[in-house]
């Protein structure tokens, strides 16, 4: 779990249980993510990956335990949670990344507009400023959300399945951005499914199937035994489950 690393902690989980309607999606999570980590979160559907990211981002509150953040986070939600039928354009979507620095009602200066343009250029969306978000492809939408992260400029980035429905070229570009951010010293936590990609690009992994199956160096986590164990997690809630009595 906690590595023998000199780097200070970015996020500490103190016996954290996250979930809905008393059913835990993440159960008694304990451990520390160090600053500058490049961590892949993987596991079966319903294993608690998205719930964990929502918990860290503050979108949901833990049922139990505490999440200690030492730095601000920026969060890229799953694209399915974004209402793309809403009539706003790419520029405005990306400019939302200015909110942490400018506030919900703050004035956006000409310099801020330039930052938006630069972020769009960085993700390869020059010329898309005026396009309605509803007309973007899956890959273009992810590029726009990456541009929003760039503007948020937080030390910790949380990304929920950023490479879903994305073609190879886009995936390669976006992974390049993740690599850059990692080199800048940011803490990157990404939900992913592609094992080969995780082995290649992510030094650390967290295998989550409601309980932590394994957490540490990716090679040690992504073993056949661990993956088998994760696969056996029951997907359905047991409606008659007894109250958990693990020490709080």
């Amino acid at each position, binding site marked *: 779990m906690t590595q023998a690393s000199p780097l200070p902690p970015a996020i500490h989980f103190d016996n954290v249980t996250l979930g809905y309607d008393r059913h835990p999606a993440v159960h008694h999570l304990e451990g520390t993510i160090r600053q500058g980590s490049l961590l892949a979160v993987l596991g079966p559907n319903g294993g608690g990956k998205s719930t964990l990211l929502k918990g860290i981002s503050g979108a949901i509150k833990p049922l139990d335990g505490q999440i200690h953040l030492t730095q601000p986070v920026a969060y890229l939600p799953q694209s399915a949670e974004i209402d793309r039928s*809403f009539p706003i354009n790419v520029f405005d979507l990306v400019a939302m990344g200015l*909110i942490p620095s400018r506030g919900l009602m703050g004035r956006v200066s000409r310099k801020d507009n330039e930052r938006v343009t630069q972020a769009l250029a960085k993700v390869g969306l020059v010329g898309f400023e005026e396009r309605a978000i509803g007309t973007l492809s899956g890959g273009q939408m992810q590029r726009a959300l990456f541009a929003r992260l760039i503007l*948020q400029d937080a030390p910790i980035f949380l990304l929920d399945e950023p490479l879903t429905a994305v073609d190879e070229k886009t995936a390669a570009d976006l992974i390049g951005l993740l690599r850059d951010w990692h080199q800048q010293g940011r803490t990157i936590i990404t939900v992913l499914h592609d094992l080969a990609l995780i082995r290649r690009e992510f030094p650390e992994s967290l295998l989550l199937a409601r309980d932590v199956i394994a957490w540490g160096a990716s090679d040690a986590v992504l073993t056949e035994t661990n993956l088998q164990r994760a696969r056996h997690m029951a997907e359905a809630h047991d409606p008659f489950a007894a109250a958990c009595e693990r020490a709080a």
Partner: protein
Amino acid sequence: MSAYDILITPFADYGFMRRALVGIVALAFGAGPIGVFLTLRRMSLVGDAMAHAILPGAALGYLVGGLSLGFMTAGGLLAGFIVALLAGALSRISVLREDASLASFYLISLAGGVVMLSVKGSNLDLLHVLFGSVLGLDNATLFLLVTASSVSLLTLALIFRPLVLECVDPEFLRSVHGHGGRVHLIFLALLTLNLVSGFQALGTLLAVGLMMLPAVAARFFSRQIGPMMTIATVIGLLSGVIGLLISYHVGLPTGPAIILTAGLILLGSVLFGPQDGILTSRLPRPHLES
């Protein structure tokens, strides 16, 4: 009959027509943008529910203070805010979705209002509350209409960014701002304010019409939220002016004439609107090179 006689004379000759015009302009400016947000948030029927919710409050105000603008407005606002707050709170702390809790509370509010009136034994004439009196707007009512729409526009400008964000990406809003959820309540308060001021002119039920019909029509003119709100306001203004004139020349009841005009404009927009109109989108158009 010249165009001047048809379009200008009624307003030049009669004070009540000029007052009606001012009232309608105020309503269109306040209600149009709110209506656009309602349609975009798939809450088109919430306006109607809220109109029912404020009805008993207004009627109770009438019962206590007679045909007093202050009492009826206060009663309507109070009933609307209470229903909106309770519905919002219940959907957050229980498994009920907001539409279910809103439907429950407005029905309870409506029934409660009717019971209170019957216990009082009053033979209350609800016609005024139901259908308004756009041709009988006095100074105080005009002042209320203009104030409500100014407050509404200014508040909407202030909360515009978080409100859009709440519609597009609520998880993101919560991650960048802990109190983002409150913007929804402020929006419901603005909705109530517009409906309460609208019932003075058009009545509770038709006030929703001037809010929703132009907003729905605006979708057929633009895919951008800013232009949509402007277009909805312009359609509201046009419906108001044309409706007033039809009502004057043909002798139709004013509120329904205004709403039917808005309905006709909506029909035209659905068919011929430049953005996805049913007939316009079937016109053969060459596709572009890239």
